């Protein structure tokens, strides 16, 4: 479970996350939506302890992420698929991450197989397409077989086949009882993948409901999203 309590992050004058509170429960895929700059990625960074909150708390399974000793076993995350060294092979990339959390070569081979990259495991990641890098990032998130997973726009750059694969993977991971938080801008895809939706705008919570509840009053999830975030899409506007 992921829990945000009155979470606030300020960068200089910019209030990126503003007293944001919500819970992501295990057993279903939770979609994380919001316009660019709404604070989705910042919230994920705060959960992972990459940035320190100005105030409030971000908890994973009831504790602070930073207190975990081998976090890959509890939380897997894909924040930036481009975060690979272009000269390092896919296998060595995963090994570098696995070693630091006492994960062995056998598991690295397993996740490579799972994401369909076994055939290019010894190829340099610099030559990978964005879709292949997304698969590599997902493999890294799955290394420790964690109960909590966070994916920041994993569908970007994937071909239709890959999009369908991600949908099945996400739903399968949730059905196994894991907590899955998934951010994306593709509304139609989100409607097919997620059961619950959290929408943020300008760092604040806009909606926290099931897909069924959101679409009840609107023709589609996209229409619901547009209506709910209409007042939140003033990029860089003064608050």
């Amino acid at each position, binding site marked *: 479970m992921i829990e945000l309590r009155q979470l606030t992050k300020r960068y200089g004058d910019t209030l990126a996350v503003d007293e944001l509170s919500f819970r992501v429960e295990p057993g279903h895929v939770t979609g994380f939506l919001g316009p660019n700059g709404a604070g989705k990625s910042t919230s994920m960074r705060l959960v992972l302890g*990459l940035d320190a909150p100005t105030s409030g708390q971000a908890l994973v399974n009831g504790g602070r992420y930073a207190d975990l000793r081998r976090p890959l076993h509890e939380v897997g995350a894909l924040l930036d698929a481009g*975060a690979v060294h272009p000269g390092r092979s896919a296998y060595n990339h995963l*090994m570098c991450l696995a070693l*630091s959390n006492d994960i062995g070569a056998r598991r690295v081979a397993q996740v490579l197989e799972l994401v369909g990259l076994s055939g290019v495991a010894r190829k340099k990641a610099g030559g990978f397409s964005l879709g292949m890098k997304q698969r590599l990032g997902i493999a890294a998130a799955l290394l420790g077989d964690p109960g909590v997973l966070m994916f920041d726009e994993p569908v970007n750059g994937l071909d239709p086949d890959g999009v369908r694969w991600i949908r099945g993977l996400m739903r399968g991971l949730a059905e196994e009882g894991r907590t899955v938080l998934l951010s994306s801008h593709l509304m139609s895809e989100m409607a097919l993948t997620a059961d619950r939706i959290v929408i943020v705008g300008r760092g604040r919570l806009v909606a926290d409901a099931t897909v069924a509840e959101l679409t009840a009053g609107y023709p589609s999830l996209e229409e619901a999203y547009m209506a709910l975030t209409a007042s939140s899409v003033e990029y860089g506007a003064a608050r």
Partner: protein
Amino acid sequence: MSVLAAEWLKVRSIRSSHLIVGIGLGSVLLAAGLAWMAIGMYEDASPSMRRSARIAELEEVVVIVPQLCLGILGLVSWTSDRVLQTSLTIVPRRWPVLMSKAAVAGGLGLVVGAVTVFGTFFLSRGMLAGRYPVSGFAESWPILVPTSISVAVFAVLGVGLGVIMRSTAGAVAVLVGLVYVIPMIGGNLPEPWSERLGSVMMGALPREIAGASLASSVYGELLSPVAAALVLAAYALLPLLAGAWLLRRRDA
């Protein structure tokens, strides 16, 4: 230990690290080339000039190459890590990542330093003996050991500078400044500042540690062996500790 293994694999699995280490080790060949040129000059000289022929200790001349190479290896291990955010995510206590990078760079520096310094010593002395007056191993090893260690010091210094500056270009500029620019400026300062600044330069420390003369160089020789050893350690540790402190306070 597991973080150390991860950082060691990070360095090993990139071709550029092999290249950098290779160039550092190649400085032995550079020294051999210099010795070969010196032999040619000796052969062309008149008998009276031959009697007064002198040559600098080549391992102390070319050590600047492995120093800079390992310094760069150390700093790019931070600035060009590419998976640094991921590493800091999956190792939430950040200092093990920093210390492992320092240990990997420092360990490689020690090996490369020892191989190049001692290799250059034996190769160049073998080539030059009989023509130029050369020092023997018994009197030279107290200088060779701290000269080898200075390569490891540069590697750890590179890691520290990388964390502090978070910029490859900026940190390289500082490294080159420390090896080359500041000693040159220092050598042209009025006394006593030239001697004082020259005594704390990295190039002066191995001989000060050994208690050997530095009279014919831009460097000073004011420090006692113990003080010089402490300054050498400070070059490695102060930037690293400053980096560790910064790492605790700022967002990744």
